[in-house]
């Protein structure tokens, strides 16, 4: 009956429909990448070019880097390339992208890889090598790695007995953040065994505190801090050999060893008496971002927070991070005082081109010269490079991490979730442990589900 005017009305509607379609498509393309090169000339006079002579003259050449390291951590990186750029004439083009881990595979598969990528996960490294686009590390780089790094670090950059990627930076995950002031006032001592840690925790409860604070929320990556917890306890309750078998899936993900490890974590994180100081109940661990999780220590609302060395950057600038300051960290102890398992991570330099300037850059990054140059520039950074002089590190936490990494008694193990296939390491493991804390899913279901996700 009133249909006659339909055509003009629906034209209006169509215009609206088109514009909303446009809005949808516009929202889909966010995220611009920073491709600013670090080639401004500074302090040219003070640089000693002798160590770079061997690379020869590479004037006018360019090396492109693609990495997940973004502001503010990218500044010391760019700065640390300057001596190399000025002495060899190479221009280093740095591209930092938060979505690196998903984009690098796409770029490699599409035949559009950068010259060099900083890969933070050996599992991803293997996938990248499998694309056939990566090239083996040059002999000079391999020689550097043999000289300056441990066997295990070299093995993380090796795929099918071919050496591809030298380690770049490293971090120590087996740390517990605390307030030295609070410890002194309350008369607590830093625990040196797991039992002592438990006793300390109970003592804090008796003193009317909620000792631990934790948070695992991290957007799509929610859950990763929890996998670190479990890996740390897997290393301690099962031992390094069991840990290796577990990583390689030689023992099932849901076996008795893993069950014991996750239950040991549950004894802390699923205990209402122990968590979640200043942040809520057990469930609040799931909704607290990992960046915020350790901050209640500053207000005295919690006393202990297990998180990696890079967490130092999350405290406000004026916080005094020192052995006798507001905040410091201790090594998450082993079963007894003699065993010293250390969980950590790091990045690896994978090249997709074998031009001379790329080789020279890889060799430079794997040298002790670069490690020390970088150490002087940055805060919240360490390397497993044995040529690194801990005195060059300014930050007390970096010095502590370097001491732990370079300790001959330490048994270092790489973050398991970074070594496992992506379907487990960056999906099921994160998701299931998150459900374990957020909806009270039991340990058995959690581990069974992760085991099920392991690629056949």
């Amino acid at each position: 009956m009133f249909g006659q005017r339909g055509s003009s009305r629906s034209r209006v509607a169509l215009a609206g429909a088109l514009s909303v379609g446009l809005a949808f498509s516009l929202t889909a393309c966010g995220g611009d990448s920073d491709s600013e090169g670090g080639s401004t000339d500074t302090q040219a006079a003070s640089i000693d070019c002798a160590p770079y002579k061997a690379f020869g003259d590479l004037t006018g050449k360019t090396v492109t880097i693609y990495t997940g390291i973004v502001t503010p951590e990218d500044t010391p990186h760019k700065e640390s390339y300057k001596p190399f750029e000025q002495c060899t004439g190479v221009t280093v083009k740095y591209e930092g992208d938060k979505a690196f881990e998903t984009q690098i595979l796409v770029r490699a598969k599409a035949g559009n890889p950068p010259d060099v990528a900083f890969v933070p996960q050996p599992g991803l490294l293997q996938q990248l090598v499998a694309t056939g686009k990566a090239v083996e590390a040059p002999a000079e780089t391999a020689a550097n790695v043999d000289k300056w790094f441990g066997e295990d670090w070299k093995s993380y950059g090796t795929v099918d007995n071919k050496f591809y990627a030298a380690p770049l930076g490293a971090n120590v995950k087996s740390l517990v953040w605390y307030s030295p002031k609070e410890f002194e006032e309350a008369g607590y001592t830093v625990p040196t065994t797991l039992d002592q840690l438990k006793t300390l925790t109970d003592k804090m409860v008796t003193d009317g505190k909620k000792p631990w604070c934790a948070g695992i929320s991290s957007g799509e990556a929610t859950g990763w801090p929890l996998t670190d917890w479990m890996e740390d306890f897997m290393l301690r309750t099962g031992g390094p050999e069991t840990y290796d078998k577990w990583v390689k899936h030689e023992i099932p993900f849901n076996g008795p060893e893993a069950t014991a490890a996750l239950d040991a974590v549950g004894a802390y994180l699923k205990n209402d008496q122990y968590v979640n100081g200043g942040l809520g109940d057990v469930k609040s661990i799931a909704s607290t971002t990992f960046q915020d999780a350790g901050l209640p220590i500053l207000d005295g609302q919690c006393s202990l927070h297990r998180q990696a060395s890079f967490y130092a950057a999350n405290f406000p600038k004026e916080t005094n991070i020192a052995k006798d300051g507001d905040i410091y960290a201790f090594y998450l102890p082993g079963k007894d005082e003699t065993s010293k398992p250390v969980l950590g991570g790091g990045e690896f330099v994978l090249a997709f081109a074998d031009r001379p300037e790329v080789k020279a850059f890889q060799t430079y990054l794997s040298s002790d010269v670069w490690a020390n140059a970088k150490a002087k520039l940055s805060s919240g950074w360490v390397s497993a490079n044995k040529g690194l002089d801990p005195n060059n590190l300014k930050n007390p936490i970096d010095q502590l991490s370097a001491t732990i990494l370079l300790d001959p008694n330490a048994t270092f193990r790489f973050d398991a979730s970074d070594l496992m296939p992506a379907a487990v390491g960056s999906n099921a493991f994160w998701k299931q442990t998150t459900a374990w804390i957020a909806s009270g899913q039991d340990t058995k279901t959690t581990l069974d589900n992760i085991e099920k996700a392991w690629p056949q």
Partner: protein
Amino acid sequence: MFAAILLFAAVVGVLLFIAGRFGGKRDRVVAYLYLAPVVLMLSVGLLYPGVRTIYESFFNAAGDAFIGIDNYKTIFTDSEQLVVLRNTAFWVLLTPFAATGVGMLYAILVDKAKGEAFAKALIFLPMSISFVAASVIWKFMYEYRPDQGNVKQIGLVNQIIVWLGGKPVQLLIDSPLNTFLLIAVMIWIQAGFAMTVLSAAIKAIPDDIIEAARLDGVGPWGMFRFVTLPAIRPAVIVVITTIAIGTLKVFDIVQTMTGGRFNTSVIANEFYSQSFRSANQGLGAALAVVLFVLVIPIVVYNIRQLRRSEA
């Protein structure tokens, strides 16, 4: 960018030149010539990737072994994937009708009222905010702080709960409540679009019809039921289907607010997560195909409705 513009100009120039060489009766040739670039670009940019995605959906995670319909089986049997399908159903069934309903109610209420333009601008504003920004805003709305010591709420929703004497709730954790809270964000964004289109349609209803209905003694409800609604029906359908298509593809809100955790994932988000996070190319492709298949009926219906009203 500049190079692309130059290229575009060059292509158009060549086309015009060739087209100019054909005289009067060769309309058909000219038409094909003009169509050629479109067809070419659609094939390269849409057809090939589409066919390729369907092809890849029959392969395993690494894309190197044919596994038949296993990926589709996974989508419809795996407990985690079933949650994804359930959530997508919630989104598609709820968002279009709720957003259209809110938009329509608002359009009718403010129609010819005082300060109509201002009232409309208020509800239209969310439209101009990107999905990601809207998600960030609402994440703060839902933010939770514990009921401990001197800790203060920073999220509006929890603050209201506290004012009403309740305890703060971790809104984004509990499933399926969290999915509905995410849907609320989409409704908030889309209601403005629905309002704008429907308001225009309402304004297009001839005054004499309204006058006649009034003289016949029709009340407000009758006016809506027998006059307004039938008159704006085509616009309502377009609005509902458009929002439905947009909702099926929803990705930004889920990704930004929960990253698909706590059982909030939807097909588009799961597709991204499987393809790029989990490196499961086959399952990712299969999810994309399912999404594609689900959109088709809505698009077809939309086009048919448009055709009918144009006829």
